[in-house]
């Protein structure tokens, strides 16, 4: 990986992962750049490492060989052996010594500061695989864009190289930011978590007025937009929400494509690894029958529905 951590002074962005051969996000074979610093706090978030902008350290119990080198090396004595694993105490200064000494990669940095050029080089590696389908790179999560210089540079490089770009976004940003993004992105994957403003706040920490406004603006600008609806059993899968979503889209984005993304619990382990609390323990994956019901309701409103992205 060419994206080494760089000094904060350099113009760069905070990302936490570059995933190649992504085939469920935005059409074709893509490379996804996962940004950090998401302003939303969705209770079911499968990528909690996307939320903060400051570096975090993940502890991987499954990789740990139990040698205790990290605890011994920690200058703040912040690591304690607990049960069959390690606990990171309050005293951790994120000096990274534990990551450095762990040969098993059981302690890893989350988040790195990268230069746009380095990320672009990584995207270019799969260029041959993008072209047959006109598919491309894809930016996901995080605050959009963060910071502006990094995002502009990266998208400009992609455009020059003829690489199709897609962004998956919560849509929660200032109008100025949206204006800036519209001309440089080829496809928007726009998340709809919940239609009720009050419930949206409860579930994600923010209200959705600005999100809906931005959606309308992007659609109004004639952009290629796909809606993504994470269907979280027990949270946002009510008939009422589905009906409101269908009605809204029928008016504001008639015939729009929509991906239903049924809840999965694959992200739960990350909370433990980051020592963060998981708040959606009651969430469940709606069964096939329920997904089919939702699908047919949305289709009845004239939307083109796929399940799973």
């Amino acid at each position, binding site marked *: 990986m060419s994206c080494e951590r760089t000094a904060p002074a350099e113009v760069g962005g905070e990302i936490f992962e570059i995933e190649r051969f992504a085939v469920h996000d935005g059409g074709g*074979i893509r490379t996804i750049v996962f940004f950090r610093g998401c302003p939303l706090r969705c209770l079911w978030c499968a990528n909690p490492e996307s939320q903060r902008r400051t570096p975090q350290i993940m502890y991987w119990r499954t990789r740990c*060989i139990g040698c205790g080198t990290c605890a011994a090396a920690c200058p703040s004595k912040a690591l304690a052996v607990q049960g069959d694993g390690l606990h990171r105490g309050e005293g951790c200064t994120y000096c990274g010594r534990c990551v450095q000494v762990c040969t*098993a990669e059981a302690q890893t940095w989350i988040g790195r500061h990268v230069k746009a050029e380095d990320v672009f080089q990584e995207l270019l590696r799969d260029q041959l*695989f993008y072209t047959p389908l006109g598919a491309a790179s894809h930016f996901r999560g995080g605050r959009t864009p963060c910071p502006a210089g990094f995002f502009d540079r990266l998208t400009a490089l992609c455009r020059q190289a003829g690489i199709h770009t897609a962004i998956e976004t919560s849509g929660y940003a200032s109008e100025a930011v949206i204006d800036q993004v519209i001309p440089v992105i080829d496809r928007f994957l726009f998340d709809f978590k919940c239609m009720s403003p009050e419930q949206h706040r409860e579930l994600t920490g923010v209200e959705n007025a600005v999100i809906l406004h931005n959606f309308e603006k992007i659609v109004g600008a004639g952009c290629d937009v796909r809606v993504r609806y994470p269907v979280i059993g027990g949270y946002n899968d009510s008939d009422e929400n589905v009906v409101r979503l269908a009605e809204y889209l029928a008016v504001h984005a008639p015939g729009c494509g929509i991906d239903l*993304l049924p809840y999965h619990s*694959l992200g739960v*382990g990350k909370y433990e690894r980051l020592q963060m609390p998981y708040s959606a323990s009651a969430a469940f994956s709606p069964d096939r029958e329920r997904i089919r019901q939702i699908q047919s309701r949305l289709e009845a409103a004239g939307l083109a529905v796929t399940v799973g992205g």
Partner: protein
Amino acid sequence: MGISVKGRERIRRIREQSLHTKQYVCVQRARYLTEAYIEYAADPMILRRAKAFSRVLEKMDLFIEDEQLLAGTQASSLRAAAIFPEYCSQWIIDEIDELEKRPGDRFFVRAEDREELLTIARWWRGKTVQDRCMAVLPREVKDAYAMSVLSANGNMTSGDGHIMLDFERILTLGAEGIIAEAREKLRGLDVAANHGDYKKSIFYRSVIAAYEGMISFAERYAELAERLSGEAESAARGEELMRIARVCRQVPRHPAGNFYEAVQTVWFAHLLSQIESNGHSMSFGRLDQYLYPFYQRDRESGALTDEEATELLACLWLKSFGIVKIRPWSHTRFSGGGPTYQNLTLGGITPDGEDAVNELTMLCLDSVAETRLPQPNVSARYNERNPDRYLNRCLEIIQLGFGMPALHGDQMMIGSLVSRGVSLRDANNYAIVGCIEPIIPGKCGYRSAGMSFTNFAKMLEITLAGGKDPETGLSLCSLRGDLTAMSSFQEVMDAYQTVISRVAKLRVEGENYIDYSIEELVPEAFCSGLVQDCVGRGKTAKEGGSVYDMVTGPETGIVNAANSLAAVKKLVFEERAVAAPELVRALRENFSGMEGERLRQMLVNRAPKFGNDEEEVDALANTVYQMFIGQQKLYPTARAGRGPIGCLSYPCTATISGNVPSGVHVGATPEGRFAGEPLTEGCSPYHGTDRKGPTAVLNSVARMPNTQITGGNLLNLKFSPEVFADQAGREKMRGMIKAFFTMDGWHVQFNIISTKTLRDAQAHPEEYRDLVVRVAGYSALFNDLEPKTQNDIIERTEHEL
């Protein structure tokens, strides 16, 4: 799709019957062969052997399976294994009572056959190919085999195999036509004027004897079918048996007149080559091409429907599944399921360079989807001229999860074959033999592939140990010292080159001794009748009768060597993160203890690994292979100067399942691999070390010296079934495959991850470090997930299949 409901039922029932048959050892081939060997002891070997072959065909008990539409089996009962005592016999004496106690590939010996088998095996003592090889091979070569830097055991115990007959020749001439050719040649000889014609005269008489045996074999089936027809349970079956009788009266004696006769002819020729000799990887070649004229004619006249053609093809594959090989346990335990590598090649282009995909290609794909068996081994050539519907159908069948078809890129291989001296028309016509090795149908000699295994990981182990094998204590060559005596990475590479050069030479030396032993003791008249230009030249392929002579080993463990060298370079010489003596000790102690494990983790995680699209280690894999290729070029084959074009050996990474046994005698390696663990499969990344997905793997593989690997470069990729499940997913895969072949990729085979694989991954996480779970907006390594989540994924996967 291509088969009728009734046909599908027939295929299902025959398939079930084949899969649930108790496997017996059949003594008959060994009995009649040995009997004839004694009777014709005065004859020259090739004639003695041809007569023995005919004797087997005339005496063996015959049967026709219920509902089968084709006749001909290799032994006296379904899925029974014939014995080939002329290749090796001692193992029979040693293992006869163990065969039914094997944990897998179990065989039963009937009480009445046991003593007879032992008597036969004792008669063969000292007369077999293996005995001859052991008698003539020089000490140094035997030592190299003992050290496992080379392995040629299969060559000595089973013979060559790896042949693709000229099926067009038997289809258009018939056995009588081949006999007539041989007779005419015989008439033209003058042993008085040319004493060299003596050998030719024996050769032609042998060919005649072998093909007369073939005709009488088919006649016997015709008689049997007629008799069974009278006893048939239903009138419909009675008619089917009468049809079989009519077909067997006609072919292979005469040229095939219709599609049914053509399929039966192909089966007889293919079967007989496997009764004649014991090697595996006898392959069907481009069946969709050479059977197409028969198919087309019958379709036009209305004599054949697509349903009937598909059913007949499925019957042929079920017959091929009936070919069973029994081998000494020392081999069997490494190749579970008794693979026979009967390859079928589809698609690609014609000799003239036109799109070769036709309706029969599609029916072949449909028919293997019906049988879903390990045989035949299906290879789909991909050429940019081939239509999308063809690649789509291939992908649909891949999604069924039985690992087939494997895909092969024309663009790279045709150019590579031409660079070896193959004509463009012949190169366009290439087909796959055995696992992934491209050869020219009907024009290449025996064992055009699969000679000695050359073990790059073992050679590196010996290099780092100073030229001596730590396991056996044998010395391969003298080096200045072990790793601790080397002061730079360049010195490591220089020492490795010394070892590689030594082994490359020993390899060919051993192959020549073995080749001459096979040439002398087991010459094959039947096969020679169907390999160009043996009849023309009056000699067997082994004596130089074939048009082309190009052989390959496989080279195993190149990726292990590259990964290990990358670790030594970075961690010992560049970063000095570990001192040489410390590494040498850890390797010797197989990373025991917590410190050993910490070091191993460092080797695994902090040094680059092939398959992650990292230029430096990928380049190292290329360099390592080139160090061998440069030496390999120096030595011609044992046919040099005897007629064929080429007489050279070139690289090949088709390790088949040999990556497992190849690892058994290799100690711990600096890539972090424990002693005895398997080596890498072909040029695939070492299991669990590719962490960036398939596109990164393909980019790494594209950095291998692909155009020089004319013998085939094997790549296995794992995918979850959902990637192939819908049309959109298959389109993405199609795009990826096309891109890979554009960048000079050669072969790719897809393993669809089943729930069984996932459970195995739970039990053996170390081997599945590369297993990626992908859903929208999220991906994770399977290993990193908690057992509960893993179980969820297993359930989901079950659902999707």
